[in-house]
Protein backbone atom coordinates (compact mmCIF):
# COMPACT_ATOMS: atom_id res chain seq x y z
CA UNK A 1 0.00 0.00 0.00
CA UNK A 2 2.87 2.37 0.88
CA UNK A 3 4.40 1.74 -2.56
CA UNK A 4 1.03 2.50 -4.15
CA UNK A 5 0.75 5.79 -2.24
CA UNK A 6 4.34 6.63 -3.15
CA UNK A 7 3.68 5.94 -6.84
CA UNK A 8 0.51 8.02 -6.73
CA UNK A 9 2.41 10.88 -5.10
CA UNK A 10 5.04 10.72 -7.87
CA UNK A 11 2.33 10.62 -10.52
CA UNK A 12 0.54 13.58 -8.94
CA UNK A 13 3.85 15.43 -8.86
CA UNK A 14 4.29 14.87 -12.59
CA UNK A 15 0.68 15.82 -13.35
CA UNK A 16 0.95 19.15 -11.50
CA UNK A 17 4.53 20.01 -12.38
CA UNK A 18 4.30 23.79 -12.25
CA UNK A 19 2.57 24.08 -8.89
CA UNK A 20 4.82 21.44 -7.40
CA UNK A 21 7.93 23.19 -8.73
CA UNK A 22 6.78 26.44 -7.10
CA UNK A 23 6.35 24.60 -3.79
CA UNK A 24 9.75 22.98 -4.21
CA UNK A 25 11.43 26.33 -4.89
CA UNK A 26 9.69 27.95 -1.93
CA UNK A 27 10.89 25.20 0.39
CA UNK A 28 14.40 25.32 -1.10
CA UNK A 29 14.69 29.08 -0.58
CA UNK A 30 13.38 28.98 2.98
CA UNK A 31 15.61 26.08 3.92
CA UNK A 32 18.59 27.74 2.20
CA UNK A 33 18.14 30.86 4.32
CA UNK A 34 17.70 28.86 7.53
CA UNK A 35 20.70 26.61 6.69
CA UNK A 36 22.86 29.63 5.88
CA UNK A 37 22.02 31.07 9.31
CA UNK A 38 22.85 27.77 10.97
CA UNK A 39 26.15 27.51 9.07
CA UNK A 40 27.06 31.06 10.06
CA UNK A 41 26.27 30.42 13.72
CA UNK A 42 28.17 27.16 13.82
CA UNK A 43 31.31 28.78 12.43
CA UNK A 44 30.97 31.95 14.52
CA UNK A 45 30.50 29.84 17.66
CA UNK A 46 33.63 27.95 16.69
CA UNK A 47 35.60 31.21 16.46
CA UNK A 48 34.17 32.37 19.79
CA UNK A 49 35.13 29.09 21.44
CA UNK A 50 38.60 29.37 19.95
CA UNK A 51 38.97 32.82 21.45
CA UNK A 52 37.42 31.79 24.74
CA UNK A 53 40.00 29.03 25.16
CA UNK A 54 42.54 31.82 25.74
CA UNK A 55 40.53 33.30 28.56
CA UNK A 56 42.67 34.26 31.51
CA UNK A 57 42.78 36.97 34.10
CA UNK A 58 45.97 38.89 34.87
CA UNK A 59 46.13 40.33 38.39
CA UNK A 60 48.88 43.00 38.70
CA UNK A 61 50.16 43.27 42.25
CA UNK A 62 50.91 46.45 44.15
CA UNK A 63 54.59 47.45 44.15
CA UNK A 64 54.81 47.12 47.94
CA UNK A 65 53.42 43.60 47.99
CA UNK A 66 55.75 41.43 50.11
CA UNK A 67 56.81 38.21 48.27
CA UNK A 68 56.49 36.32 51.53
CA UNK A 69 52.70 36.57 51.27
CA UNK A 70 52.59 35.20 47.71
CA UNK A 71 51.69 31.64 48.73
CA UNK A 72 48.86 32.89 50.92
CA UNK A 73 47.52 35.14 48.17
CA UNK A 74 47.70 32.33 45.56
CA UNK A 75 45.93 30.01 47.96
CA UNK A 76 43.23 32.62 48.55
CA UNK A 77 42.66 33.01 44.79
CA UNK A 78 42.65 29.25 44.25
CA UNK A 79 39.72 28.93 46.64
CA UNK A 80 37.56 30.92 44.21
CA UNK A 81 35.27 28.47 42.33
CA UNK A 82 36.14 29.64 38.82
CA UNK A 83 39.91 29.31 39.19
CA UNK A 84 41.87 26.39 37.77
CA UNK A 85 45.51 27.49 38.22
CA UNK A 86 47.43 30.47 39.49
CA UNK A 87 50.93 31.21 38.20
CA UNK A 88 53.18 33.91 39.57
CA UNK A 89 55.01 35.97 36.95
CA UNK A 90 57.67 38.12 38.56
CA UNK A 91 58.39 41.51 37.07
CA UNK A 92 61.83 40.24 36.00
CA UNK A 93 60.33 37.29 34.15
CA UNK A 94 57.77 39.62 32.55
CA UNK A 95 60.51 41.98 31.37
CA UNK A 96 62.59 39.12 29.95
CA UNK A 97 59.51 37.84 28.11
CA UNK A 98 58.86 41.31 26.78
CA UNK A 99 62.44 41.67 25.63
CA UNK A 100 62.36 38.33 23.84
CA UNK A 101 59.09 39.26 22.16
CA UNK A 102 60.46 42.67 21.09
CA UNK A 103 63.97 41.73 19.96
CA UNK A 104 63.93 44.26 17.15
CA UNK A 105 63.18 47.09 19.58
CA UNK A 106 65.87 46.01 22.08
CA UNK A 107 67.28 49.55 22.21
CA UNK A 108 64.13 50.66 24.00
CA UNK A 109 65.06 48.59 27.04
CA UNK A 110 68.73 49.67 27.20
CA UNK A 111 68.08 52.97 28.94
CA UNK A 112 65.67 51.68 31.55
CA UNK A 113 66.76 52.66 35.10
CA UNK A 114 64.44 50.19 36.73
CA UNK A 115 61.95 47.54 35.73
CA UNK A 116 58.61 49.36 35.12
CA UNK A 117 56.55 46.17 35.07
CA UNK A 118 54.67 44.93 38.15
CA UNK A 119 54.63 41.44 39.59
CA UNK A 120 51.59 39.59 38.37
CA UNK A 121 49.49 36.50 38.81
CA UNK A 122 48.24 34.70 35.73
CA UNK A 123 44.92 33.06 36.58
CA UNK A 124 43.49 30.37 34.32
CA UNK A 125 39.80 29.57 34.52
CA UNK A 126 38.39 26.09 34.83
CA UNK A 127 36.30 24.54 32.04
CA UNK A 128 32.96 25.38 33.69
CA UNK A 129 33.75 29.07 33.87
CA UNK A 130 34.57 29.87 30.26
CA UNK A 131 31.87 32.49 29.98
CA UNK A 132 32.24 36.22 30.04
CA UNK A 133 29.78 36.69 32.84
CA UNK A 134 31.86 34.42 35.10
CA UNK A 135 35.14 36.06 34.08
CA UNK A 136 33.71 39.42 35.03
CA UNK A 137 32.56 38.15 38.43
CA UNK A 138 36.00 36.62 39.02
CA UNK A 139 37.77 39.81 37.99
CA UNK A 140 35.67 41.84 40.44
CA UNK A 141 36.46 39.37 43.23
CA UNK A 142 40.21 39.53 42.53
CA UNK A 143 40.21 43.29 42.15
CA UNK A 144 38.74 43.54 45.66
CA UNK A 145 41.86 41.93 47.15
CA UNK A 146 44.19 44.40 48.94
CA UNK A 147 47.33 43.12 47.23
CA UNK A 148 45.94 43.64 43.74
CA UNK A 149 46.57 46.91 41.95
CA UNK A 150 44.73 46.16 38.75
CA UNK A 151 43.01 43.32 36.97
CA UNK A 152 43.01 42.81 33.26
CA UNK A 153 41.35 40.17 31.16
CA UNK A 154 42.87 40.96 27.85
CA UNK A 155 40.14 40.55 25.27
CA UNK A 156 37.56 42.60 27.15
CA UNK A 157 36.09 43.54 23.79
CA UNK A 158 35.31 39.89 23.28
CA UNK A 159 32.74 40.18 26.04
CA UNK A 160 30.96 42.91 24.20
CA UNK A 161 31.26 40.94 20.99
CA UNK A 162 29.74 37.93 22.73
CA UNK A 163 26.78 40.03 23.79
CA UNK A 164 26.31 41.28 20.24
CA UNK A 165 26.73 37.74 18.97
CA UNK A 166 24.10 36.45 21.43
CA UNK A 167 21.71 39.17 20.31
CA UNK A 168 22.43 38.25 16.73
CA UNK A 169 21.85 34.58 17.54
CA UNK A 170 18.51 35.40 19.16
CA UNK A 171 17.54 37.39 16.06
CA UNK A 172 18.68 34.43 13.96
CA UNK A 173 16.50 31.99 15.91
CA UNK A 174 13.53 34.34 15.52
CA UNK A 175 14.22 34.70 11.78
CA UNK A 176 14.51 30.91 11.42
CA UNK A 177 11.17 30.53 13.21
CA UNK A 178 9.54 33.13 10.96
CA UNK A 179 11.00 31.51 7.82
CA UNK A 180 9.81 28.12 9.06
CA UNK A 181 6.25 29.40 9.55
CA UNK A 182 6.32 31.33 6.28
CA UNK A 183 7.50 28.20 4.46
CA UNK A 184 4.75 26.11 6.07
CA UNK A 185 2.05 28.59 5.04
CA UNK A 186 3.40 29.04 1.52
CA UNK A 187 3.58 25.27 1.10
CA UNK A 188 0.07 24.97 2.57
CA UNK A 189 -1.18 27.51 0.04
CA UNK A 190 0.49 25.91 -2.96
CA UNK A 191 -0.77 22.49 -1.90
CA UNK A 192 -4.22 24.06 -1.51
CA UNK A 193 -3.91 25.18 -5.14
CA UNK A 194 -2.91 21.63 -6.13
CA UNK A 195 -5.90 20.28 -4.21
CA UNK A 196 -8.16 22.87 -5.82
CA UNK A 197 -6.92 21.91 -9.28
CA UNK A 198 -7.76 18.30 -8.40
CA UNK A 199 -11.04 18.93 -6.61
CA UNK A 200 -13.08 16.88 -9.11
CA UNK A 201 -10.74 13.96 -8.73
CA UNK A 202 -10.89 14.16 -4.94
CA UNK A 203 -14.67 14.43 -5.08
CA UNK A 204 -14.86 11.32 -7.29
CA UNK A 205 -12.54 9.45 -4.91
CA UNK A 206 -14.79 10.32 -2.00
CA UNK A 207 -17.89 9.26 -3.91
CA UNK A 208 -16.48 5.85 -4.79
CA UNK A 209 -15.80 5.20 -1.13
CA UNK A 210 -12.18 6.26 -0.69
CA UNK A 211 -11.44 6.80 2.97
CA UNK A 212 -9.86 10.11 3.94
CA UNK A 213 -6.47 8.53 4.56
CA UNK A 214 -6.52 7.15 1.01
CA UNK A 215 -6.90 10.71 -0.29
CA UNK A 216 -4.58 12.32 2.24
CA UNK A 217 -1.58 9.99 2.31
CA UNK A 218 -0.37 10.67 -1.28
CA UNK A 219 -0.49 14.41 -0.47
CA UNK A 220 1.49 13.78 2.71
CA UNK A 221 4.02 11.80 0.67
CA UNK A 222 4.13 14.64 -1.82
CA UNK A 223 4.79 17.12 1.00
CA UNK A 224 7.51 14.91 2.48
CA UNK A 225 9.13 14.40 -0.93
CA UNK A 226 9.00 18.11 -1.70
CA UNK A 227 10.53 18.80 1.71
CA UNK A 228 13.35 16.31 1.18
CA UNK A 229 14.04 17.48 -2.38
CA UNK A 230 13.83 21.14 -1.31
CA UNK A 231 16.34 20.53 1.48
CA UNK A 232 18.59 18.65 -0.94
CA UNK A 233 18.62 21.57 -3.35
CA UNK A 234 19.15 24.11 -0.54
CA UNK A 235 22.05 22.13 0.95
CA UNK A 236 23.64 21.67 -2.47
CA UNK A 237 23.47 25.42 -3.17
CA UNK A 238 24.78 26.18 0.31
CA UNK A 239 27.64 23.73 -0.13
CA UNK A 240 28.64 25.35 -3.42
CA UNK A 241 28.57 28.78 -1.78
CA UNK A 242 30.58 27.43 1.17
CA UNK A 243 33.08 25.74 -1.12
CA UNK A 244 33.73 28.90 -3.10
CA UNK A 245 33.97 31.12 0.02
CA UNK A 246 35.75 28.83 2.48
CA UNK A 247 39.03 28.66 0.52
CA UNK A 248 39.09 32.49 0.24
CA UNK A 249 38.48 32.93 3.97
CA UNK A 250 41.10 30.37 4.96
CA UNK A 251 43.71 31.92 2.71
CA UNK A 252 42.87 35.45 3.76
CA UNK A 253 42.74 37.33 7.03
CA UNK A 254 41.87 34.34 9.21
CA UNK A 255 44.54 32.13 7.67
CA UNK A 256 45.68 29.45 10.11
CA UNK A 257 43.44 30.65 12.94
CA UNK A 258 40.58 28.28 12.30
CA UNK A 259 38.95 26.15 9.64
CA UNK A 260 35.59 27.14 8.21
CA UNK A 261 33.43 24.05 8.55
CA UNK A 262 30.38 22.92 6.61
CA UNK A 263 27.35 21.48 8.35
CA UNK A 264 27.96 18.11 9.97
CA UNK A 265 26.13 15.10 8.49
CA UNK A 266 23.92 15.05 11.58
CA UNK A 267 23.00 18.72 11.16
CA UNK A 268 22.36 18.19 7.42
CA UNK A 269 20.11 15.24 8.27
CA UNK A 270 18.26 17.39 10.83
CA UNK A 271 17.76 20.12 8.22
CA UNK A 272 16.36 17.57 5.76
CA UNK A 273 14.01 16.29 8.46
CA UNK A 274 12.97 19.85 9.30
CA UNK A 275 12.29 20.51 5.64
CA UNK A 276 10.24 17.32 5.36
CA UNK A 277 8.29 18.51 8.39
CA UNK A 278 7.63 21.80 6.58
CA UNK A 279 6.30 19.90 3.53
CA UNK A 280 4.18 17.56 5.60
CA UNK A 281 2.79 20.32 7.79
CA UNK A 282 1.85 22.36 4.70
CA UNK A 283 -0.04 19.37 3.28
CA UNK A 284 -1.62 18.60 6.63
CA UNK A 285 -2.95 22.13 7.15
CA UNK A 286 -4.44 22.52 3.68
CA UNK A 287 -5.95 19.01 3.62
CA UNK A 288 -7.47 19.45 7.03
CA UNK A 289 -9.16 22.64 5.88
CA UNK A 290 -10.25 21.22 2.52
CA UNK A 291 -11.57 17.83 3.63
CA UNK A 292 -13.54 19.35 6.49
CA UNK A 293 -15.99 20.63 3.91
Amino acid sequence: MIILFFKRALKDFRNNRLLNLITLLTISLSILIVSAFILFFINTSEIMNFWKKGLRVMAYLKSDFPPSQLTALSGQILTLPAVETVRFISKETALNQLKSQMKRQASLFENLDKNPLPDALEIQLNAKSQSWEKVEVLATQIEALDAVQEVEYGQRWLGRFTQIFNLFRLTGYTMCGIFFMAAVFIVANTIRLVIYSRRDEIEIMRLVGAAEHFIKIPFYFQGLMQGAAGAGIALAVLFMAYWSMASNIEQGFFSGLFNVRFLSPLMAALIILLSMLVGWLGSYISLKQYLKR
Partner: protein
Amino acid sequence: MTDTDEKRSIIRMFHVHRNYGTKKALIDITLDIFKNDFVFLTGASGAGKTTLLKLLYLAEPVSEGQVLIDGMNISRIPRKRVAFLRRKFGIIFQDYKLIANRNVFDNVSLVLEAAGKKRRLIQKRVRGVLRLVGMEDRLTALPPSLSGGEQQRIAVARAIIGDPKIILADEPTGSLDDDSANIIMKLLNGVHIRGATVIIATHDKALIRKTGGRVLLLKQGRLQGSSIIEKHYDNSIF
Protein backbone atom coordinates in the same frame (compact mmCIF):
# COMPACT_ATOMS: atom_id res chain seq x y z
CA MET B 1 -45.21 -2.26 6.82
CA THR B 2 -44.83 -5.89 7.91
CA ASP B 3 -41.84 -7.54 9.60
CA THR B 4 -41.08 -9.28 6.33
CA ASP B 5 -40.95 -5.95 4.51
CA GLU B 6 -38.60 -4.60 7.15
CA LYS B 7 -36.28 -7.56 6.68
CA ARG B 8 -36.38 -7.18 2.89
CA SER B 9 -35.75 -3.43 2.93
CA ILE B 10 -32.32 -2.19 1.96
CA ILE B 11 -33.28 1.49 1.87
CA ARG B 12 -35.93 3.06 4.12
CA MET B 13 -36.87 6.72 4.20
CA PHE B 14 -39.12 8.20 6.88
CA HIS B 15 -40.62 11.66 6.37
CA VAL B 16 -37.51 12.92 4.67
CA HIS B 17 -37.21 16.57 3.77
CA ARG B 18 -34.40 18.35 1.96
CA ASN B 19 -34.39 22.14 1.97
CA TYR B 20 -32.05 24.61 0.27
CA GLY B 21 -32.73 27.72 2.31
CA THR B 22 -36.43 28.36 1.82
CA LYS B 23 -36.65 26.16 -1.28
CA LYS B 24 -37.97 22.68 -0.57
CA ALA B 25 -36.36 20.10 -2.86
CA LEU B 26 -37.84 17.04 -1.18
CA ILE B 27 -40.98 17.06 0.95
CA ASP B 28 -42.02 14.32 3.36
CA ILE B 29 -40.64 11.35 1.45
CA THR B 30 -41.41 7.99 3.00
CA LEU B 31 -40.50 4.89 1.03
CA ASP B 32 -38.99 1.44 1.16
CA ILE B 33 -36.74 -0.08 -1.44
CA PHE B 34 -36.23 -3.80 -1.15
CA LYS B 35 -33.20 -5.96 -1.71
CA ASN B 36 -32.79 -6.83 -5.40
CA ASP B 37 -35.42 -4.27 -6.45
CA PHE B 38 -35.09 -2.66 -9.86
CA VAL B 39 -36.41 0.83 -9.27
CA PHE B 40 -36.94 3.78 -11.55
CA LEU B 41 -37.10 7.14 -9.87
CA THR B 42 -38.87 9.34 -12.31
CA GLY B 43 -40.39 12.78 -12.66
CA ALA B 44 -39.87 16.00 -14.52
CA SER B 45 -36.66 18.02 -14.30
CA GLY B 46 -36.43 19.60 -10.85
CA ALA B 47 -38.74 17.02 -9.28
CA GLY B 48 -36.01 15.97 -6.83
CA LYS B 49 -34.68 12.75 -8.39
CA THR B 50 -31.00 13.70 -8.22
CA THR B 51 -31.44 15.23 -4.75
CA LEU B 52 -32.91 11.99 -3.48
CA LEU B 53 -29.98 10.00 -4.87
CA LYS B 54 -27.53 12.48 -3.33
CA LEU B 55 -29.10 11.96 0.07
CA LEU B 56 -28.61 8.23 -0.31
CA TYR B 57 -24.92 8.41 -1.14
CA LEU B 58 -24.37 11.12 1.45
CA ALA B 59 -23.35 13.84 -0.94
CA GLU B 60 -25.93 16.01 0.83
CA PRO B 61 -27.39 15.93 4.31
CA VAL B 62 -31.02 15.25 5.17
CA SER B 63 -32.76 18.38 6.48
CA GLU B 64 -35.39 16.42 8.36
CA GLY B 65 -36.41 12.78 8.71
CA GLN B 66 -34.53 9.50 8.81
CA VAL B 67 -32.81 7.40 6.15
CA LEU B 68 -31.78 3.82 6.84
CA ILE B 69 -29.43 2.07 4.45
CA ASP B 70 -28.89 -1.62 5.05
CA GLY B 71 -29.97 -1.03 8.65
CA MET B 72 -27.67 1.98 9.23
CA ASN B 73 -29.15 5.38 10.05
CA ILE B 74 -27.12 7.67 7.83
CA SER B 75 -27.73 10.76 9.99
CA ARG B 76 -25.89 9.08 12.83
CA ILE B 77 -22.93 7.77 10.90
CA PRO B 78 -19.61 9.25 12.05
CA ARG B 79 -17.56 10.97 9.35
CA LYS B 80 -15.00 8.17 9.31
CA ARG B 81 -17.69 5.59 8.44
CA VAL B 82 -19.06 7.53 5.48
CA ALA B 83 -16.50 6.01 3.09
CA PHE B 84 -17.40 2.55 4.34
CA LEU B 85 -21.10 3.21 3.70
CA ARG B 86 -20.40 4.56 0.21
CA ARG B 87 -18.72 1.27 -0.69
CA LYS B 88 -22.15 -0.33 -0.48
CA PHE B 89 -23.06 1.78 -3.52
CA GLY B 90 -21.96 1.76 -7.10
CA ILE B 91 -22.77 5.18 -8.47
CA ILE B 92 -23.23 6.07 -12.13
CA PHE B 93 -23.46 9.73 -13.02
CA GLN B 94 -24.97 11.32 -16.07
CA ASP B 95 -21.71 13.20 -16.69
CA TYR B 96 -19.71 9.97 -16.00
CA LYS B 97 -17.38 11.66 -13.48
CA LEU B 98 -14.25 9.91 -14.71
CA ILE B 99 -10.85 11.28 -13.75
CA ALA B 100 -9.64 12.86 -16.96
CA ASN B 101 -5.89 12.44 -16.42
CA ARG B 102 -6.09 8.80 -15.35
CA ASN B 103 -6.45 5.99 -17.80
CA VAL B 104 -9.34 3.54 -17.96
CA PHE B 105 -7.58 0.98 -15.78
CA ASP B 106 -6.80 3.53 -13.07
CA ASN B 107 -10.33 4.95 -13.09
CA VAL B 108 -11.86 1.53 -12.58
CA SER B 109 -9.26 0.21 -10.16
CA LEU B 110 -9.72 3.24 -7.89
CA VAL B 111 -12.68 1.60 -6.11
CA LEU B 112 -10.71 -1.51 -5.20
CA GLU B 113 -7.60 0.48 -4.29
CA ALA B 114 -9.72 2.62 -1.98
CA ALA B 115 -11.05 -0.57 -0.39
CA GLY B 116 -7.46 -1.73 0.20
CA LYS B 117 -7.56 -4.75 -2.13
CA LYS B 118 -4.37 -6.47 -3.23
CA ARG B 119 -2.73 -5.44 -6.50
CA ARG B 120 -3.01 -8.87 -8.09
CA LEU B 121 -6.72 -9.11 -7.31
CA ILE B 122 -7.24 -5.59 -8.65
CA GLN B 123 -5.54 -6.47 -11.94
CA LYS B 124 -7.71 -9.55 -12.35
CA ARG B 125 -10.99 -7.87 -11.39
CA VAL B 126 -10.43 -4.77 -13.52
CA ARG B 127 -9.67 -6.83 -16.61
CA GLY B 128 -12.71 -9.02 -15.88
CA VAL B 129 -15.13 -6.14 -15.48
CA LEU B 130 -13.77 -4.30 -18.52
CA ARG B 131 -14.28 -7.48 -20.53
CA LEU B 132 -17.87 -7.55 -19.27
CA VAL B 133 -18.53 -4.00 -20.48
CA GLY B 134 -16.64 -4.62 -23.71
CA MET B 135 -13.79 -2.21 -23.00
CA GLU B 136 -10.90 -4.57 -22.25
CA ASP B 137 -8.93 -3.28 -25.23
CA ARG B 138 -9.02 0.33 -23.96
CA LEU B 139 -7.14 -0.20 -20.68
CA THR B 140 -4.65 2.59 -21.23
CA ALA B 141 -6.95 5.09 -22.93
CA LEU B 142 -7.66 8.39 -21.24
CA PRO B 143 -11.37 9.22 -20.75
CA PRO B 144 -11.39 12.31 -23.01
CA SER B 145 -10.32 10.09 -25.92
CA LEU B 146 -13.44 7.89 -25.52
CA SER B 147 -16.96 8.42 -26.85
CA GLY B 148 -19.84 9.21 -24.45
CA GLY B 149 -21.11 5.63 -24.62
CA GLU B 150 -17.65 4.25 -23.92
CA GLN B 151 -17.15 6.62 -21.00
CA GLN B 152 -20.47 5.55 -19.52
CA ARG B 153 -19.47 1.91 -19.89
CA ILE B 154 -16.30 2.69 -17.93
CA ALA B 155 -18.47 4.43 -15.33
CA VAL B 156 -20.63 1.29 -15.11
CA ALA B 157 -17.51 -0.84 -14.79
CA ARG B 158 -16.33 1.37 -11.94
CA ALA B 159 -19.76 1.17 -10.30
CA ILE B 160 -20.00 -2.62 -10.39
CA ILE B 161 -16.39 -3.67 -9.78
CA GLY B 162 -16.73 -3.57 -5.99
CA ASP B 163 -19.81 -5.86 -6.07
CA PRO B 164 -21.95 -3.22 -4.38
CA LYS B 165 -25.30 -4.05 -2.85
CA ILE B 166 -26.91 -1.01 -4.43
CA ILE B 167 -26.40 0.63 -7.82
CA LEU B 168 -27.47 4.27 -8.06
CA ALA B 169 -27.63 5.61 -11.60
CA ASP B 170 -28.48 9.22 -12.31
CA GLU B 171 -29.76 9.54 -15.88
CA PRO B 172 -27.30 6.85 -17.04
CA THR B 173 -28.51 6.95 -20.61
CA GLY B 174 -29.44 10.64 -20.73
CA SER B 175 -26.76 11.70 -23.17
CA LEU B 176 -26.29 8.45 -25.08
CA ASP B 177 -27.52 7.17 -28.43
CA ASP B 178 -29.92 4.20 -28.47
CA ASP B 179 -27.26 1.55 -29.01
CA SER B 180 -25.09 2.82 -26.18
CA ALA B 181 -28.15 3.20 -23.94
CA ASN B 182 -29.13 -0.43 -24.65
CA ILE B 183 -25.66 -1.65 -23.72
CA ILE B 184 -25.78 0.30 -20.44
CA MET B 185 -29.25 -1.03 -19.56
CA LYS B 186 -28.19 -4.59 -20.37
CA LEU B 187 -25.24 -4.18 -18.04
CA LEU B 188 -27.45 -2.83 -15.27
CA ASN B 189 -29.90 -5.70 -15.79
CA GLY B 190 -27.01 -8.11 -15.51
CA VAL B 191 -25.96 -6.61 -12.19
CA HIS B 192 -29.57 -6.82 -11.00
CA ILE B 193 -29.78 -10.49 -11.95
CA ARG B 194 -26.63 -11.11 -9.92
CA GLY B 195 -28.42 -9.76 -6.83
CA ALA B 196 -27.85 -6.01 -6.63
CA THR B 197 -30.56 -3.44 -5.97
CA VAL B 198 -30.65 -0.99 -8.88
CA ILE B 199 -32.10 2.51 -8.60
CA ILE B 200 -32.18 4.57 -11.77
CA ALA B 201 -33.18 8.21 -11.82
CA THR B 202 -34.55 9.05 -15.22
CA HIS B 203 -37.21 11.09 -16.95
CA ASP B 204 -37.07 8.80 -19.99
CA LYS B 205 -40.48 7.10 -20.02
CA ALA B 206 -39.60 5.00 -23.04
CA LEU B 207 -36.62 3.55 -21.22
CA ILE B 208 -38.84 2.63 -18.26
CA ARG B 209 -41.41 0.98 -20.51
CA LYS B 210 -38.75 -0.91 -22.37
CA THR B 211 -36.99 -2.14 -19.24
CA GLY B 212 -39.80 -2.52 -16.72
CA GLY B 213 -39.51 -2.43 -12.94
CA ARG B 214 -40.82 -0.61 -9.94
CA VAL B 215 -41.45 3.06 -10.61
CA LEU B 216 -41.45 5.84 -8.04
CA LEU B 217 -42.84 9.10 -9.35
CA LEU B 218 -41.67 12.40 -7.90
CA LYS B 219 -43.48 15.68 -8.50
CA GLN B 220 -42.19 18.96 -7.13
CA GLY B 221 -40.32 17.17 -4.38
CA ARG B 222 -43.19 14.93 -3.29
CA LEU B 223 -43.54 11.22 -3.88
CA GLN B 224 -46.68 10.89 -5.99
CA GLY B 225 -46.97 7.18 -6.35
CA SER B 226 -45.36 3.82 -6.78
CA SER B 227 -46.23 1.11 -9.26
CA ILE B 228 -44.79 -1.86 -11.04
CA ILE B 229 -44.35 -1.44 -14.79
CA GLU B 230 -44.24 -4.63 -16.75
CA LYS B 231 -41.68 -4.71 -19.48
CA HIS B 232 -42.83 -3.18 -22.81
CA TYR B 233 -46.53 -2.55 -22.32
CA ASP B 234 -47.72 -1.27 -18.90
CA ASN B 235 -47.62 2.53 -18.61
CA SER B 236 -50.41 3.08 -16.06
CA ILE B 237 -48.44 5.42 -13.83
CA PHE B 238 -48.01 7.99 -16.60
